[in-house]
C-alpha cells in the first residue's frame, strides 16, 4: 500500500512528511538523516547533480554551478546556467522534489498521493510552475495547498492544544510571508482569509545583515565588502546567533566586526512593518478585530527572530504559540491534506478514522471578475474590472450579476475572466485568465441584459457562463485553479476569435 505524503517545498529548506499507520503525520528524514533538506542544487557535470546539504555549501560559498532560492523565481523566465547547462526555476524545483521523494522511497516504499505546498500569495504562473515541477519529478500530483492552511492542519493534529475558535497562522519562512485567519471547530478547519507578501522572508533579513557588515567593514577596513568575504551562509549563521544573543562578533578577512541585535532589528524594522501591515489588512479583510483572534500559531523558521515575536505580541496582545517545530509543521499538514484529498479506500482503518473526521474548507484566494465598460461622468465609455467573486469567499460559491450592452446594434460582447489580489478596478492590474466572445443578434437597442455567473467549486474549478438573456445564447469558460492543468494547448481553435 502506497503512502500519502506532503512536501513543503521551501525557499531555503524543504521537508517531506507522510501519514503513519495510525493516521498521524510524521516527518520522513532524508538520506543524510536530516528532517530538513536545503533547497539547493549543484551541478558538477552533465552526469552529476547534488541536491541538498552539499549543494548548499557550494551555493553559500558562491559557486557558479550552484543555485538556491529559486522558489522566488517560480513562474518567471529566469534561467540559471550551471556547469554550462540551462535550468529554469521549475527544473531546479523538480530536482529538489525528486531528491526528497527518492530519499523517502528508500524508507517508506511506494507513494500513493502527493501534495506540495505553495505560499498563499503565489501568482498563478508560479502555482502552475510548481505543479509542473512536481510532474517533471515524476510525481502523481493532483493538489497543492497553501502553506498557512497546511500549517493550520499541522497544528490541528496536536491534540494537546485543543484548538477551538478563530486563529491566525503566521508563516514567515526563508522567502515568503503568509498569514491565514482560520476558524477551527473540533476537526474542521475553515480558512476565512489568507494573504501573503511575495518577497519577505529570512533571506531578506540576511541581506540587511550583510548591509550592516558591509557598512562597518568599509568604516573599519576602508574596503568594499566582496561577496566571497562574507558569504550568504555566514550572514544566515550570524542572523541565527542574534536570535539567541544580544551581540555577536563576526570576522571578515581578519577584521572583527561587532553587530548588536538592536542594530539588526533597526535594519529589518521596515520589513517587520510590512508583515504588520499585512496582518492588519488581513484581519480587516476577514471582517474581524484583533480581539477576535484567540491565538497566533507560528510557522516558518524566521518566526524565531525575537523582534518578529515581539511584533506579534504587540499586534495581537499575546505571545504566539510556537509549540510545534515551526519548520516542519507545513509538511505535516500537507501530508494530512494528501490523505484527506486522496483515495481514502487506500487508507487503513486507523488512518481512515483520523482522516475521515477532518474537514477543510478553503476560501477564494483572489478576486475574480470580468472586464466591463463603464461610462464616466462625461458619458465616455471606460474599461473597468468588475468583480464577481470576492477574495475570501467561502468555496464552493456561485455569483450571478447582470451587465447590459452599451451600444445599439451591438453584435458581440467580450467575455473575459480576470483575476487579481486586490479589489482592483483598473484593468491594467488584473490577469486575464480566459477570454472569448459571445455573439449577439443584430438590430437590438442598447441595454440588452447579459447574465454572468461564476461558480467556484470545492475542487477549485471555476465555471463561468455568459448568457444573453433574450436569446439564452450562452458562452462557457472553465478555469482550473489549483489542480494540474497542461499549459500546452494543441487545439488551435481555442485561440481563434468568434
Amino acid at each position, binding site marked *: 500500500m502506497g503512502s500519502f505524503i506532503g512536501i513543503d517545498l521551501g525557499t531555503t529548506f524543504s521537508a517531506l512528511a507522510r501519514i503513519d499507520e495510525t493516521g498521524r503525520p510524521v516527518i520522513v528524514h532524508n538520506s543524510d538523516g536530516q528532517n530538513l533538506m536545503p533547497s539547493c542544487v549543484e551541478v558538477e557535470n552533465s552526469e552529476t547533480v547534488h541536491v541538498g546539504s552539499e549543494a548548499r555549501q557550494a551555493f553559500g560559498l558562491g559557486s557558479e554551478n550552484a543555485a538556491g532560492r529559486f522558489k522566488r523565481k517560480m513562474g518567471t523566465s529566469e534561467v540559471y546556467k550551471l556547469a554550462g547547462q540551462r535550468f529554469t526555476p521549475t527544473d531546479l524545483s523538480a530536482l529538489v522534489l525528486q531528491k526528497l521523494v527518492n530519499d523517502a522511497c528508500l524508507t517508506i516504499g511506494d507513494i500513493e498521493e502527493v501534495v506540495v505546498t505553495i505560499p498563499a*500569495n503565489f501568482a498563478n504562473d508560479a502555482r502552475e510552475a510548481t505543479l509542473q515541477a512536481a510532474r517533471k519529478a515524476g510525481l502523481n500530483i493532483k493538489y497543492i495547498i497553501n502553506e498557512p492552511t497546511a500549517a493550520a492542519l499541522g497544528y490541528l493534529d496536536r491534540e494537546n492544544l485543543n484548538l477551538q475558535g478563530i486563529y491566525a497562522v503566521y508563516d514567515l519562512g526563508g522567502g515568503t510571508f503568509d498569514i491565514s485567519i482560520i476558524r477551527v471547530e473540533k476537526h474542521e478547519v475553515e480558512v476565512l482569509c489568507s494573504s501573503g507578501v511575495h518577497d519577505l522572508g529570512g533571506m531578506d533579513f540576511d541581506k540587511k545583515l550583510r548591509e550592516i557588515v558591509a557598512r562597518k567593514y568599509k568604516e573599519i577596513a576602508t574596503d568594499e565588502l566582496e561577496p566571497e568575504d562574507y558569504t550568504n551562509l555566514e550572514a544566515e549563521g550570524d542572523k541565527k546567533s542574534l536570535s539567541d544573543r544580544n551581540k555577536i562578533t563576526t570576522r571578515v578577512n581578519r577584521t572583527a566586526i561587532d553587530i548588536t541585535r538592536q542594530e539588526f532589528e533597526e535594519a529589518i524594522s*521596515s520589513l517587520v512593518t510590512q508583515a504588520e501591515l499585512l496582518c492588519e*489588512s488581513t484581519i480587516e479583510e476577514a471582517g474581524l478585530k484583533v480581539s477576535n483572534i484567540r491565538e497566533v500559531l507560528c510557522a516558518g523558521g524566521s518566526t524565531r527572530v525575537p523582534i518578529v515575536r515581539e511584533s506579534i505580541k504587540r499586534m495581537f496582545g499575546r505571545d504566539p504559540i510556537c509549540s510545534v517545530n515551526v519548520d516542519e509543521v507545513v509538511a505535516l499538514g500537507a501530508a494530512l491534506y494528501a490523505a484527506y484529498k486522496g483515495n481514502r479506500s487506500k487508507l487503513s482503518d486507523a488512518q481512515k478514522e483520523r482522516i475521515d473526521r477532518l474537514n477543510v474548507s478553503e476560501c477564494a484566494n483572489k478576486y475574480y471578475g470580468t472586464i466591463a465598460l463603464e461610462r464616466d461622468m462625461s458619458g465616455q465609455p471606460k474599461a473597468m474590472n468588475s468583480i464577481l467573486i470576492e477574495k475570501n469567499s467561502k468555496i464552493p460559491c456561485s455569483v450571478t450579476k447582470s451587465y447590459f450592452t452599451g451600444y445599439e446594434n451591438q453584435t458581440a460582447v467580450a467575455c473575459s475572466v480576470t483575476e487579481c489580489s486586490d479589489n482592483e478596478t483598473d484593468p491594467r492590474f488584473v490577469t486575464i485568465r480566459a477570454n472569448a466572445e459571445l455573439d449577439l443578434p443584430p438590430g437590438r437597442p442598447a441595454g440588452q441584459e447579459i447574465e454572468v455567473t461564476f461558480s467556484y467549486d470545492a475542487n477549485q474549478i471555476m465555471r463561468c457562463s455568459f448568457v444573453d438573456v433574450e436569446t439564452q445564447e450562452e458562452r462557457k469558460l472553465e478555469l482550473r485553479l489549483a489542480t494540474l492543468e497542461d499549459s500546452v494547448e494543441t487545439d488551435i481553435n481555442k485561440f481563434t476569435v468568434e
Partner: protein
Amino acid sequence: MEDLFGIVLFFIVIWIISRLANSSSQPVQPGIPLHFEVNLQDTRRETNDHSFVVKEVLAIGLLPVVKAINLGIYISVLDGNRPVLCHIEAFQEPESSAYQVRTEIGVVGPNQGFAEWSPVAGIIPEILHPPYSGLRQFKMVIRLVDSSNPPPIMLGFVKTPEHSGLIWEKTITFTHNFTEKGYLEIAEDRKTAVTLFLKMAMAVAMSDGNLHKQEGFAIQKSVLRLLTSYSGEEKQTMKKLCNQALKEGYIESRQGTLNLESLARSLNGIGNQQFKYEALQFCTDVMTADGVADPSELALLHRIGDLLGLGMQQIKGIIDRGLVKPGIEISGAANPDEVLGIDPSWNGERIKKHFLAEFRKWNGRLNTLPEGCERDNAQRMLNLIAEARKKHE
C-alpha cells in the same frame, strides 16, 4: 513630416490674426460687394528645406449673417463621397480622423464683410490622406457656421443639413497628385500584412516547439485588439482572415514549413513601414506573454527586426516598450507622504486606514505586474508605505 506640422500650425495662427485685425479696424464700409463669395488660390510657401503648396481660401463680400454671431469657417475635403483623412489631430474632426480645419473669426454682425479678396483660411494638400493615390479630383466644402452652435459634421458631411448653426456652404473642386498610397489601398495591403504577421507571431510562439496557453491567449488578445478598428461586415471578413492565418500558421509551424525569412520578405514587399512596426510589436506581445523574455527570445525578436529591415534604435524601442510597459514612475527621493497622497490634516486613524488600503493595493499588484520596472516599482511602494508608517507611529 514633423516640421511640416509646425509649419502648418504657424500659418493657421497667421491667418487668424490678420483677419481679426481686418474686422476690428475696418468695420462696415461702403463699397463692400453685397454678394459673399469664396475662391481658391494656390500659393507656394518655402521654409529652409521644404517647399509646399497652400490652397488659400479667399473671401469677398458682405457676410451672409442676419444677426450678430460667433462666426467660424469649417473646411472639409471629400474624394467623391469618401472622406479625406488627416493624421494630425489638430486638423481632424472632433470624432473622426477625417480632415477638418476650423478657423474662428469671432463675433460678426450683419453689416460686416470683406471689401476685397482676403485670405480667410487655407489647406495644405500635402497633409491630406485620400482614399486612393494618383491624380485625384477633390471637393473642398467650405462652411460658415455659428461656432456657438456648430452643426455636427461627420466624415465631411453635415449630419442634419437643416441645422440652424449651418449658415452658408459652398463646394469648390481642385486636383492634386498623391504619390503615397491611399487609405483604402493601405486597408487592402493591411489584410495581407495581418495574415503575415499573425503567422510570424505563431512562429515566435512555437519557437520552443509548443503553443503555450499564455502565448495562445496573447495572440488572441492582440487579434481582438486589432479587430476593434473594424466594424460590420469588414470585421467579419477580418475575423475569418485572422482565424485562417492562425490555423495555417499553427499547422505550418508544426510541420516545420513556416519560415520567418520568407514571411518577412513578403511583408517587406508591401513597402509599408507601419506594418513592420506592428509585426514586431505583435511578436513582442506574444513573446512577453509570460511576463518576460529570456535572452534567446530577445535574440529572436532582434532577428525579426533585422529581417524586416528596421533600425537597431527602432527595434530596441519596440522591444523595450514591450518589456517595460509605461506606467507608474516612483522616484526614490520622493517624500513618502506625498507619494502616498496623505493629507496633513488627517488624523492618525485615517492615516492608518489609508496605509492599509495602499499596502493592500500594491501588494496585490505585485503579483500581476510583469517582472521588471513596474514590479520593482510596486515593491518600492511597499517599502515606502512601511517607512511612512514607521514615521507616523
